[in-house]
C-alpha cells in the first residue's frame, strides 16, 4: 500500500475524485440550491431558468437526464421539464423531431408533451406534470391481479394511440409508466431513448463489465433497457410497433409475476436468453388466469410476426382479460363453492391433534387465495410453501394456516370477499391451537394470537352457549347469536377452537363437530374421553 503511485494511478485518482465531486447534473444541483435557498431565506435569489421555464425541485434523475417540477410563466401552469443529456448533436435534432411528433399525441393515458427545444446547449422537453409514482414504485406493494391488469390495459391503450400517430416508444419499462394519484396510468418518455449518450455504454458485449443494468443504454443505432429489449433490438434488426409490444409484455410479466421473463448475469447471457429461450416462468405463473398467460406468450413471441397484429388488439385483449377476471372473482357461486369446500373440510377434520399427519389437508383454499395474489405477496420464508400449495400438494394445517395468515396480513385492505376474512379467522383460530404434540412450532408469531377470532368475536358479541343435552362423553351445544352472524366457516373454526379448549382443559381426546348453522343459532356436537369439563 506504501508503493509510490505511478502516473497512471494518479490519473485514476483524479478520475475518481472528479467523478465524486462533479458527478451528477450541475443543473440538478443548482435547482436544488435555489429551491433550498428559497425555503431557508426570505431573500431568495432569482429562480433557476431554462428557456422560459423556472425550474423548481428535481423530481428525479435517470439515465436520460433529469426531470424538474417547473413553472411556465407564460401559460401560468405547472409543468414537468425533462432536461436531457444528449451525446451527439444529431441525437439532439432527432430528439426534437421525435418530441414534436409525440406532442401531437393527445390521449388520457399518454403524458402530454407541451414543448421541446434547446436552451443553454441542452435539449429539454416540457410536459404534463403527473403527480404520482412510477409503475415500479406502485408495484413495490403487492397488488391484485385485476388492478395490475387494469392499469396496464390503460397504458397499453396509450401506447396504441401513440402508434397510431406514428410514434414508437422504444424504451417501455415500469419506470416509464406513471400511476397518477387518481390511479390512472400514463405512459411517459416516448422516443426519448434517442437521447442516450452514445458514449455511455455499449450493448454488444463491449461494456467492460458486461453488467445488466436498469439504465437505458445504446448499442449502435439501438437504444433500450436490456431486460426489456426485444430480440430484434439485440440483433439490431428492423424494428416497428411490435417491438414496443415485447417491452410492454416484459413489463406486464414483471408486474404480474414479480420477476423478469429473461435474466442473465451479464448482457451476453441476457441476449442469449432473449434470443433462444422461453420465458422463465415462475411457479406462480401456473395460477395466472389463462387469458393472461396467452397474452404474455403471444406478446413475447421471438418473431414479431407471431405477436399481436398491433398494440390496439393487445390493449383490447388485456382489457377483456381484466374484465373477465374481475367478473370471475366477483362470482358469488365461486366464492360460495370455495367457502363451503373449506367449511365442510374443516368440519370433517379428524379428532385429536395427533391424528393430523403432516400432509393430509387439502390445499384447495390456499390455492384459491394464492391465485388472487402475485407471488410476492408472500414473505420469502413462505415462498416454498406457496409453491407447494400452487402445485396442489396437500398441506398440513400448520402450513395452510401460515399461508393464509401471511396472505391476509400482506393485504389487510384486500378483504373484498367475506371468505378472505373467514380464512384469516380460521388461520388465527388454528394458530391458537397447540401444535406441540406434532412436534411443530407455531407457524407464525404469537403476536396475533390474542386477536383470535377478533372479527367473529365482534359479530358474535352477546352470543351465548347452551347445553341442549349431555350424555357420558358427549354433549350437544347451541350457540345463540344475532341473525346471520355466524358463517359456516366461522362455525367450523369455532368448533376447532372449542375442541382445543377442551383439550387444554384436560380432556383426553376431544372432537367437536359443527352440526349446522341456523340463522339465529349454531349447533355443535362435542365428544370427549376422560374428564369432561366443557
Amino acid at each position, binding site marked *: 500500500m506504501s508503493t509510490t503511485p505511478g502516473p497512471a494511478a494518479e490519473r485514476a485518482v483524479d*478520475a475518481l475524485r472528479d467523478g465524486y465531486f462533479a458527478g451528477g447534473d450541475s443543473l440538478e444541483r443548482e435547482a*436544488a440550491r435555489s429551491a433550498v435557498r428559497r425555503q431557508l431565506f426570505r431573500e431568495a435569489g432569482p429562480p433557476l431558468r431554462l428557456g422560459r421555464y423556472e425550474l423548481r425541485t428535481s423530481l428525479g434523475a435517470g439515465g436520460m437526464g433529469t426531470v424538474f417540477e417547473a413553472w411556465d410563466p407564460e401559460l401560468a401552469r405547472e409543468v414537468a421539464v425533462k432536461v436531457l443529456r444528449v451525446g451527439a448533436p444529431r441525437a439532439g435534432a432527432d430528439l426534437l423531431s421525435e418530441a414534436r411528433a409525440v406532442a401531437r399525441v393527445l390521449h388520457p393515458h399518454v403524458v402530454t408533451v407541451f414543448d421541446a427545444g434547446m436552451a443553454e446547449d441542452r435539449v429539454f422537453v416540457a410536459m404534463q406534470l403527473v403527480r404520482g409514482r412510477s409503475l415500479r414504485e406502485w408495484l413495490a406493494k403487492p397488488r391484485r391481479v385485476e388492478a395490475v391488469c387494469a392499469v396496464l390495459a390503460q397504458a397499453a391503450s396509450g401506447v396504441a394511440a401513440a402508434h397510431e400517430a406514428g410514434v414508437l416508444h422504444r424504451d417501455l419499462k415500469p419506470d416509464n409508466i406513471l400511476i397518477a394519484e387518481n390511479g390512472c396510468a400514463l405512459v411517459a418518455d416516448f422516443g426519448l431513448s434517442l437521447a442516450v449518450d452514445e458514449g455511455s455504454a455499449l450493448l454488444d458485449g463491449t461494456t467492460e463489465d458486461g453488467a445488466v443494468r436498469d439504465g437505458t443504454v445504446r448499442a449502435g443505432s439501438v437504444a433500450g433497457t436490456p431486460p426489456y429489449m426485444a430480440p430484434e433490438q439485440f440483433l439490431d434488426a428492423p424494428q416497428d410497433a411490435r417491438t414496443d409490444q415485447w417491452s410492454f409484455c416484459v413489463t406486464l410479466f414483471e408486474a404480474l409475476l414479480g420477476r423478469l421473463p429473461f435474466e442473465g448475469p451479464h448482457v451476453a447471457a441476457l441476449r442469449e436468453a432473449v434470443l433462444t429461450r422461453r420465458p422463465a416462468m415462475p411457479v406462480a405463473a401456473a395460477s395466472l388466469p389463462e387469458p393472461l398467460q396467452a397474452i404474455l406468450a403471444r406478446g413475447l413471441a421471438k418473431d414479431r410476426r407471431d405477436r399481436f397484429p398491433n398494440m390496439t388488439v393487445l390493449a383490447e385483449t388485456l382489457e377483456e382479460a381484466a374484465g373477465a377476471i374481475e367478473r370471475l372473482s366477483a362470482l358469488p357461486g365461486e366464492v360460495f363453492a370455495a367457502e363451503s369446500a373449506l367449511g365442510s373440510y374443516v368440519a370433517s377434520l379428524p379428532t385429536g391433534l395427533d391424528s393430523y399427519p403432516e400432509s393430509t389437508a387439502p390445499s384447495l383454499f390456499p390455492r384459491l387465495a394464492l391465485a388472487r395474489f402475485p407471488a410476492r405477496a408472500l414473505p420469502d420464508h413462505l415462498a416454498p410453501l406457496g409453491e407447494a400449495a400452487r402445485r396442489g400438494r396437500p398441506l398440513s394445517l400448520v402450513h395452510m394456516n401460515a399461508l393464509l395468515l401471511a396472505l391476509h396480513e400482506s393485504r389487510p385492505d384486500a378483504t373484498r370477499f367475506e371468505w378472505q376474512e373467514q380464512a384469516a379467522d380460521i388461520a388465527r383460530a388454528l394458530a391458537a391451537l397447540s401444535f406441540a404434540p406434532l412436534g411443530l412450532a407455531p407457524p407464525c408469531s404469537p403476536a396475533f394470537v390474542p386477536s383470535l377470532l377478533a372479527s367473529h368475536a365482534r359479530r358474535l358479541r352477546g352470543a351465548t352457549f347452551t347445553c341442549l343435552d349431555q350424555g357420558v362423553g358427549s354433549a350437544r351445544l347451541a350457540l345463540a347469536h344475532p341473525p346471520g352472524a355466524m358463517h359456516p366457516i366461522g362455525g367450523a373454526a369455532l368448533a376447532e377452537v372449542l375442541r382445543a379448549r377442551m383439550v387444554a382443559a384436560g380432556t383426553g381426546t376431544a372432537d367437536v363437530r359443527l352440526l349446522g348453522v341456523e340463522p339465529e343459532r349454531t349447533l355443535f356436537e362435542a365428544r370427549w374421553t376422560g374428564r369432561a369439563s366443557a
Partner: protein
Amino acid sequence: MKSEDPRDDVALLEAWRVGDERAGAVLFDRYFDAMHRFFRNKVDRGVEDLVQQTFLACVRNKESFRAEASFRTYLYTIARSRLYDALRKKRRLGGETDLASRTLAELRTSPSTRLVKQEEQRMLHDALETLPLELHLAIELFYFEELPAREVALALGIPEGTVRSRLRRALDKLRNQLATGGGPAARRTLAGLDALASRRDSEPG
C-alpha cells in the same frame, strides 16, 4: 456564489442563530455543495428536503455543537442522523434499528439511477453501496471529503482509533468487491483507490 465574507463558520452560525439571514446565506453557500453531495448518492428522492433539514437543525441548535468539532463536522453529524432517519422512514424500520451495519444496496427500494459518465466512478459507487453504511460514510468523509480522522470520528460518533480500523476494513472490502468485477475498468478503479488511500494515509493526520 463563493462567499467573500471574512467571518469564520462559527461566527456566521452564531450570527445566523440570532437572526442574521445574510450570515446564514453565506454559510449555506459555503456548505451546500458538500451537503448536496452527501445526500444525492444515497437517497432516490428528497435530497432537497434533507439538505434543508440539515441546515435548519444547525441553526435551531437542536443538536448541540461540540466545541472540539469544526462546523463542517457538526453539519456531517446532523446530516448522518437525518440520512438514517430518512432511510428508516422509507423502509419503515423501527427507531432502534441499527442502520450502521446495513448497506445502501439493501436499503434502496429502487435501483440506483445516477448520472455517471466515468465507468470507474460508477464502479466505485456500486462497490460503496455494498458496504455497511458506517464503512461507506467513513470512506467518503476521509478519502473524498478529506476530513481529518479525528473529525470523521466526531461526525460518525465513534472513537478515533475505530475510524482507522474501520477504514482498513472498508478498503479491504472495496478491494474484494472490485477484484471480483474483473475487467480493465475495475482494475483502474482499484488502482485509483489504492493510490488515493496511500496518498491520504501518508499525510499526517
